[in-house]
């Protein structure tokens, strides 16, 4: 029972994990990206179409990354080069993603592909309780484990990562140290967006190997909230994503067991939890234990007079 629940938790949490990691990279560089939901949809459709056309899952994942990388560059141009309002641009990106995937996805509805399969790691997958959840999953899930570490390593053990973190805190400090501010910000937004896109592709290539209109169903928004919950740290993002994955898995379990509670109420739980998490983490923020990058959301103009 617990084994099954853990397995379902990881599977439900992974798309949110990718999306949260992508959003963290954006926000570490000081750019708020509220387009996560739209980018996930774009990634989901691009991934599905790529695999459908080529027959290769790898091509699908790469297509998802590249297309969302390009879509993210719209947000990057607006917020970094043009110093536009990040909130408005992000919201527009979400609207854009929902609309354009509905339009171009029409032909994909009802098509099928062979999705990601489980790959059991010998011996380890036989471990009790966690064996199945951690070591008998598909390749994308293994990749997500790796990515959590890579991102942590990047931010805390490389000079690039230090430069990107400095952009989010005090871009003028980075600038005066010779960091190419706009280039790094641009890359943080686009690469981050690409990773969000892989989260979307997980939905259409692994969760349910098909394209369904608006299949992200608000997961992008959950990711936006999880960034705050995770305190802009990738290992904590993993914890948060699986927490939500767990709630989703559990409510599905309840529904399957035929509980008398309305399915609508149960489906609401992850979103309800988002609000609770936001309230709690915001209260924590106000107590001064803030991890929030200090210049988050502020455009950087070198010639601005202080």
């Amino acid at each position, binding site marked *: 029972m617990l084994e099954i629940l853990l397995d379902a938790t990881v599977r439900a949490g992974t798309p949110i994990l990718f999306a949260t990691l992508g959003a963290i990279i954006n926000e570490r560089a000081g750019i708020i990206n509220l387009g996560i939901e739209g980018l996930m949809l774009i990634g989901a459709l691009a991934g599905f179409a790529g695999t459908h056309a080529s027959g290769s899952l790898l091509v699908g994942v790469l297509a998802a990354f590249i297309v969302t990388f390009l879509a993210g560059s719209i947000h990057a141009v607006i917020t970094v080069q043009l110093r536009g309002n990040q909130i408005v641009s992000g919201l527009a990106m979400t609207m854009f993603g929902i609309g354009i995937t509905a339009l171009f996805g029409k032909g994909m509805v009802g098509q099928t592909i062979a999705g990601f399969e489980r790959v059991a790691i010998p011996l380890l997958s036989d471990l009790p309780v966690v064996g199945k959840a951690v070591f008998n999953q598909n390749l994308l899930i293994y990749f997500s484990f790796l990515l959590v570490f890579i991102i942590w390593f990047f931010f805390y*053990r*490389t*000079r*690039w990562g*230090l*430069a990107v*973190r*400095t952009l989010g*805190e*005090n871009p*003028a*400090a*980075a*600038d*005066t*140290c*010779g*960091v*190419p501010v706009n280039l790094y910000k641009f890359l943080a937004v686009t690469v981050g967006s690409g990773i969000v896109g892989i989260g979307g592709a997980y939905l259409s290539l692994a969760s349910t190997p098909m394209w369904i209109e608006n299949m992200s169903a608000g997961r992008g928004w959950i990711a936006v909230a999880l960034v705050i919950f995770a305190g802009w740290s990738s290992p904590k993002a993993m914890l948060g994503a699986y927490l939500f994955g767990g709630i989703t898995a559990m409510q599905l379990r309840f529904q399957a067991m035929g509980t008398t509670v309305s399915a609508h109420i149960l489906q609401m739980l992850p979103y309800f939890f988002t609000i609770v998490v936001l309230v709690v983490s915001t209260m924590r923020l106000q107590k*001064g234990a803030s*991890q929030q990058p*200090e210049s988050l959301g502020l455009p950087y103009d*070198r*010639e601005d*007079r*202080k």
Partner: protein
Amino acid sequence: MADFLRIEHIRKTFPGVVALDDVSFSVASGEIHTLLGENGAGKSTLMNVLTGLYHPDRGEIRIDGEKISLTSPRDSLAYGIGMVHQHFMLVPAHSVFENILLALDNVPNLFNRKKYQTKVQNLIDEFGLELDLDMPVWKLSIGAQQWIELIKLLMRDCRLLILDEPTAVLTPQEADRLFAVLERLKNQGKSIIFISHKMREVMQISDRVTILKKGHSITSLKRDEFDENKLASLMIGDDKIPQWQKNLQMSDEIVLEIQQLSVRNDRGLADLDSFDLELKKGEILGIAGVAGNGQKALAEVLTGLKTASQGRIMAKGQDITSSDAKKSYIAGIAHIPEDRKSIGIAPDMSVDDNLIMKSFKNGAFSRWIFQDKKAIRRNANEKIEQFAIKSGPDGTPIRYLSGGNIQKVIIARELSEKPAVLVALYPTRGLDIGSAEYVHKVIADGADQGMGTILIAEDLDELLKLSDRIAVMFRGQLVGYVDPRNTTREEIGLMMSGEKQGGAV
């Protein structure tokens, strides 16, 4: 000496403002070149042009005679130009090590942490500093943060070092240590541009001085061509310096008493920590201390902008600890704030309106529910004449006035109701000498009429000249009182770094 850097006819405008207008300037190898001028004269703008932050509209920059263009700080660094900015370029949430590491040249992206930590630690030891590399910067004192900025600059192999008011937050002893480092660099053939308002420092270390005024470079003088008086008269130009003299001695009557007062900041640290202070009637009480040791919190708590977590403030026998800004005013405390443009005035409103901001509820300026424009105008005319404010045409937004005139408006407003206590936080910071002397005169005149003044200032010379007593602050506590007539700068400097030694006055 060959010129390392030469700039010619630089012009830089911002929307609505000409910040630099035809500025020429040069600095030689092995030279310390000082820039003098009031705030707004264009010193920092000029330096930001040199570091590639601002792009000039016109003009040439030459290095070793070669014309160059600086499009970003990256370019400047590549030419060996480094700067310590007046506003710290630090990330408070990052550790000391991380802040320094980002500033280093040639650090590989996958770096050897140990190696660079040792490197940074060696320099810290060389300066005899006590800095924990893993400590987040926000936990450090402002003075320590200044040293981190200096280390960032010194660890790079720069040919030109620009220091924008580096000593403002250092004790006199620390400043001397910095000057020794600068002398050494100079002897190695490096060029140094130094910006300071403190005449003593300028005289001590400059090989050449250039004076900037309203975006123009007025003149450059070599070491044997200037002395303190010459520089002062050049900065003042045709302006008259007000004469003043303090006549009345302070009485023994206590007008303000602070007992065991503690104030916490937003991060939960103590800005004031069981602080005690007594202000007497007609006294000018100077507060000495390195910036960031609680001076601002002291001014803010006295004027009701911050609340105390512990302790009491007594004025005229009345406990005013928990009153808001308005009630403190009624109790008779006037305030000259640190940041005159953002706290002292409403920049887009006229001089007339700014002058009545404290007394707008007073019936003299209203008829029923309407403003009495005539009375407001009359009041403004009186004040403009009395305080010699150059205010421009009627209705001019106050932000177009010079710093000195804005400060006069604030003073006119604050002193209009004959306060018993004045709290002045860096009242002459960035003012030209004429305006600064005017502020001194007003404070001295006020003292003659029995006003007690708490004067918080950076420049020890200013405090020594003006104060009846000097109280020294360190880490939110009172170190002690000294008598300015028989105390040396060195003694005060030691107290500013926390050594108790002042006797009772």
